[in-house]
């Protein structure tokens, strides 16, 4: 038995660090998505399966373009935070760090690709 109190063990370890900021970021993005997701479903949904000219003309309009751009960006930022918690729960050590970095990079790449595509269609 080691003569260490719980307090002694905790001192110097620091706080939960960015836990609060992470929680708040997910809360803000989740509330934003509550508004964005229904708008996206009813703008993107009818376009799925339409021909190219119709789709390009539709997403050149301000409302569908802005909703699609916001939904893609906010969704992937929400996913970036959510999947980090998933990985932290099930994967440990070096693999955990590598996976988190990969998923964050994937999230930014997908958000940038979506933004680029919609900008190119809309402008």
């Amino acid at each position: 038995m080691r003569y260490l109190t719980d307090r002694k063990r905790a001192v110097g370890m620091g706080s939960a660090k960015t836990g609060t900021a992470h929680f708040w970021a997910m809360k803000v993005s989740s509330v934003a998505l509550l508004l964005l997701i229904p708008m996206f479903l009813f703008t993107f949904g009818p376009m799925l399966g339409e021909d190219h000219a119709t789709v390009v003309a539709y997403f050149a309009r301000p409302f569908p373009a802005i909703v699609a751009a916001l939904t893609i960006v906010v969704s992937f930022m929400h996913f970036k935070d959510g999947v980090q918690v998933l990985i932290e729960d099930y994967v440990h050590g070096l693999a955990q760090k590598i996976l988190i970095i990969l998923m964050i990079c994937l999230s930014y790449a997908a958000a940038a690709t979506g933004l680029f595509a919609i900008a190119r269609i809309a402008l």
Partner: protein
Amino acid sequence: MADVNRGNRPLSPHMSIYRPQLTSISSILTRITGNAILLAALLIVWWFLAAATSPEYFAIANGVLTSWFGDLVMFLSLWGLWYHTLAGIRHLIWDYAIGLDLDTAYKLGYAVIGGSVVLTLLTVALI
């Protein structure tokens, strides 16, 4: 000393002997749906990129997303999206320490599962 049994304590939530119930199943489904819809999200980004590139490339992406496989992924993801959305609302409520008692938690659980099915069918019918 507070740590007489340190390192030899049972771990929560004892996955091997944990009886599945509505609260635990609806909780893990939130995580599964939220992460699984990544596939549909990436497919949709690809669809937009193809639309921005050329009619020929768009025909390929649009063909994949409206094939039987694409339909299956989109339909399951639509349910996943509604489930995750409703479960997220449940978390926003819980964040204010409201509805945490077992009775309300079960009612919210049934509402999330039932609501997600209804909203999925409604979305398919309306689009």
